[in-house]
């Protein structure tokens, strides 16, 4: 069942030397945010979360306005209910898998939390790993825990920062397929940061290219391939073509 939702962002922020100025909207779909290192992709995710301060912001999530500098509205990170999985997953190292997932559920008073937690562990194939600490897990397992934890609260949007970059080549393919399946079943706006061409093409229904703090091109993979508007996009679509031909 599709939720009425979507995420509309209009942000301007000066973070150190980088001026981030972006405005775009997405429906209940997966948008891949691609761009070179230092383009401001991670910074943009933190701005959407409310973890960094914006000079100007208008962020609408479904029917909720979570930030509007003109109206002096700033919903704190704690109340935005956005799922976030950072690049290295940021699992709490002192907590077991079960406790990591329970952490999220315990923060919001949920009456069925133990049931929900067991369901989350089961859905992500983590029941057997429930008592293990993060350092005992493989990269792919850590990613599943981070996803289970982020999705356990049924967030209104999902932000994934380079979800596959910490994995070795062997586990990358299986984890990518798992992630693809998870994203397909979600009905919330999701933003996935990557600079890998294959991941961008497979995971995103649309791709936004970010360079030097700005969105320089946005569209489907085919649209980008047909009319690349920067060297980065040319290389991105070219790299993918080579991958497929190779």
């Amino acid at each position: 069942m599709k939720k009425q939702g979507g995420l509309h962002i209009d942000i301007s922020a000066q973070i150190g030397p980088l001026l981030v100025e972006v405005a775009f909207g997405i429906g209940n779909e997966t948008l891949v945010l691609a761009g070179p290192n230092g383009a401001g992709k991670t910074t943009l995710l933190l701005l959407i979360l409310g973890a960094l301060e914006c000079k100007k912001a208008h962020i609408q999530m479904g029917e909720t306005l979570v930030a509007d500098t003109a109206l002096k509205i700033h919903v704190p990170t704690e109340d935005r209910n956005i799922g976030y999985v950072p690049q290295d997953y940021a699992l709490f190292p002192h907590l077991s898998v079960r406790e990591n997932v329970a952490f999220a559920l315990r923060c919001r008073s949920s009456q069925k939390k133990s049931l929900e937690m067991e369901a989350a562990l089961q859905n992500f194939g983590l029941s057997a790993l429930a008592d293990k600490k993060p350092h005992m897990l493989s990269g792919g397992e850590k990613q599943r825990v981070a996803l289970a934890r982020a999705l356990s609260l049924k967030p209104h949007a999902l932000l994934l920062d380079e979800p596959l970059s910490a994995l070795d080549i062997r586990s990358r393919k299986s984890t990518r397929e798992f992630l693809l399946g998870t994203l397909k079943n979600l009905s919330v706006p999701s933003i996935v940061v990557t600079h890998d061409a294959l991941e961008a093409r497979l995971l995103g229904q649309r791709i936004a290219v970010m360079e030097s703090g700005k969105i320089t091109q946005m569209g489907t993979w085919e649209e980008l391939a047909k009319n690349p508007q920067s060297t980065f996009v040319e290389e991105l679509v070219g790299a993918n073509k080579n991958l497929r031909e190779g």
Partner: protein
Amino acid sequence: MRLKFENFTLRAVGFLLAAFLVFPVLALFVASAPRELLLGLQHPLVWPALRLSLLTTTTTTLVVVFLGTPLAWSLAQSKRKGIQFIETLLQLPLVIPPSVAGIAMLLAFGNRGLLSALLHPAGNSLAFTTTAVIMAQVFVSAPLFIQSASSAFRRIDAKLVVVAQTFGALPWSVFFRVALPLALPGLAAGAAVSWSRALGEFGATLMFAGNLEGKTQTLPLAIYTAFTSDIRAAQAISIILVLVAFALLLLMRVFMKKAERKFDGMP
């Protein structure tokens, strides 16, 4: 051959300093016969001073940890411009001479100090009491704890805090459920170093709390008193201080290793 020679030279230079640091401590233990030291331990100053030192330093450490932990967390979290200045100000007691610390304590909390009307309206001074000993110890030892604890909090991956916030964790929850357990090794290390510093505190205590047997005379002050009359007693008390300090430092290292293993997943 050259590799060996260069390694040997580096070690030899390092050994010089190591020997300089260890030799005086060793001298404390070997300069007198064990029988003499046992006689020194029977000096009437020893046990009251030991009891008072343990009581005051334990209280001091509890106060420092209880108040210093939230302070260190606030400092580590703050992104304000003046934070460097505030941290420098808080570290001052570490570098000012102990006598200056003593005068400063007297001028702030003493009989005619700035807070005298507030602290002792009935005219009962805090100075020259056991409370004054604890205050002097807190003044000189808290900066060490704050330094160690704020570094430990700063080492926590900022992403963990953001992730916790995305789950709706409020500041207390982030502090108690994420920051505190992760910073525990640093806090324990800070507490041990701070405890050792409190145990060795001399100058500020002498000036602010005096040297009253059983009331304000801690182990370092007892050494100072015994030094003029019975060197064996001074030596025996010094040995006790060295042993307690060494045990504290050893405990700190063992605890830190255990905690690091716990989080890093080392076998």
